[in-house]
């Protein structure tokens, strides 16, 4: 499904503030895998996701999705394959446009957009059905501008939009970090439902170690641009958050220092 080969990302290459953010990353993600990614600040988690999405391009190495090399493809060209939900709930939706207009943008994911009206009766019925699945009452507010929604509602809408139009790969970048715990829980439940339903392959960055172990079937830990731990199967089932911290200390030679991680213990 997704294959990262010898991936290097260097910011400000050749300048005094050169920063080697990813070092020789090799990762193979079979179809249907749900990987949670953890690590200290500046470990390269978000950069990794951005390389998969096409926001940045690597200095060396290749990115393959569905057997196709997409290393040089910009974001819009990867859109048919990749859906994304961002940390900032404001980024994933257009505030001035209505709920139905936002959804109609997602329907044409990666397809040529024409001079047909973006909305019609059929689409509205379909949007109502999809929104009802979120169980947030949004199905009755199709014509409401998105700027009037709460952060959680916007994030749920983004999640829905990120999975419309049949992308194979879903990227979640700390997408519940800006939400209150109750809303975060709700969003996670919705995620589980959608991911199972569409058989999606998922990469999720999180600071919540408990969440990292509770969700998905595989966890990778990153530190200073490298993958230092790849947990799956039995080993992952038995591990606790404290084990994770101990493993981090053993592999990286220092404590896992991140306020948000420690707060979430």
């Amino acid at each position, binding site marked *: 499904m997704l294959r990262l080969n010898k991936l290097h990302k260097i910011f400000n290459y050749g300048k005094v503030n050169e920063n080697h953010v990813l070092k020789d990353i090799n990762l193979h993600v079979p179809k249907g895998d749900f990987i949670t990614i953890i690590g200290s600040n500046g470990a390269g988690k978000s950069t990794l996701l951005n390389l998969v999405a096409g926001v940045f391009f690597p200095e060396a190495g290749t990115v393959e999705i569905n057997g196709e090399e997409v290393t040089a493809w910009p974001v*819009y060209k990867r859109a048919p394959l990749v859906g*994304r939900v*961002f940390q900032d709930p404001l980024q994933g*939706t*257009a505030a001035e446009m209505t709920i139905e207009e936002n959804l*109609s*943008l997602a329907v044409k994911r990666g397809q040529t957009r024409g*001079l047909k009206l973006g909305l019609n009766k059929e689409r509205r019925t379909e949007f109502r059905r999809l929104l009802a699945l979120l169980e947030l009452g949004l199905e009755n507010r199709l014509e409401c*501008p998105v700027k009037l929604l709460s952060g959680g509602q916007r994030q749920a809408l983004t999640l829905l939009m*990120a999975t419309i139009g049949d992308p194979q790969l879903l990227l979640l970048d700390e997408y519940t970090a800006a939400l209150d715990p109750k809303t975060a829980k709700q969003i996670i439940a919705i995620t589980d439902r959608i991911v199972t339903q569409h058989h999606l392959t998922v990469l999720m960055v999180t600071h919540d170690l408990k969440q990292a172990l509770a969700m998905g079937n595989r966890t990778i830990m990153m530190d200073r641009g490298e993958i230092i731990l790849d947990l799956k199967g039995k080993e992952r089932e038995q591990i606790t958050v404290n084990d994770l911290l101990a493993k981090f200390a053993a592999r990286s030679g220092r404590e896992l220092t991140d306020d948000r991680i420690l707060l979430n213990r």
Partner: protein
Amino acid sequence: MWLNILQGTIEQGLAFSLLALGVYLPFRILDFPDLTVEGSFPLGASVTAVLIINGVNPFLATLLAFFAGMLAGMLTGIINTKLKITGLLAGILTMTSLYSINLRIMGRSNIPLLRETTILTVIKSWGLPERYVSLIVFTLLVLVVKFLLDYFLATEIGMALRATGDSPIMIQSLGGNTDHLKILGLGLANGLVAFSGALTCQYQGFTDVGMGIGMIVIGLASVIIGEVVIRTSKIIFATLGVVIGSIIYRLAIAIALQLGFAPTDLKIVTALLVILALGAPTLRNFMIQDEFAERLMERSVPDAQIK
């Protein structure tokens, strides 16, 4: 006499409302402060004038003016997206180049059109009452353009265009090429501006190379007045507001002239109007803060006395 002035004012407002729509599109929909307008307005006028004095059908001349403006807008878009030059500067560069280009097109700085065949003289010859030709033609044209624009902004491409200004990261992640959408939007907007220039020169009977100066501020003033008159998040009402705003702006200018303002002072009056309207929310905040601070002071005085 008053009625004549009123009618003339409305006609001008209608002709300029197409310019205002061409300012609304980049400023409000694309979130792109596009200064190309100051060059594409006289571009539309000079293309039309030169074609007309060379015997080209005035309808065809007006249409070609639209496409010329579109090219100018697309050029700004390409400078901005492909060469990564900021939008403001990209517009200024195109606008500056257009000054030379317009002079080249015209061959001199002014072309009179008084005895030439324009779309207005042609339509007059179809038997419309002479007094109302401009009013009728402009009203119909503006309505058609407004509804076409409304329709376009509700299509799949149009919505992607709106999302480009609203949330570029989101529309990219959904497969929209924001570079192309921006170029398209700027092209369309400046096509409208050039169209406005084409109508204006046929209406006033001449084209002057300097007729673009201050157009961006006039367009902005119309957009802002429209937003004050019609508060809405719906496109169809917003574009209606722009048209109405353009007419109200012309009325305000006509009144200012009647009050004895020199025509040369009107640009600063317009600029002040825009500054006031755009600065109003900030000024209001200052006032609210002052008021609040005063109230706090009043409350803290008795406390101090108790001590």
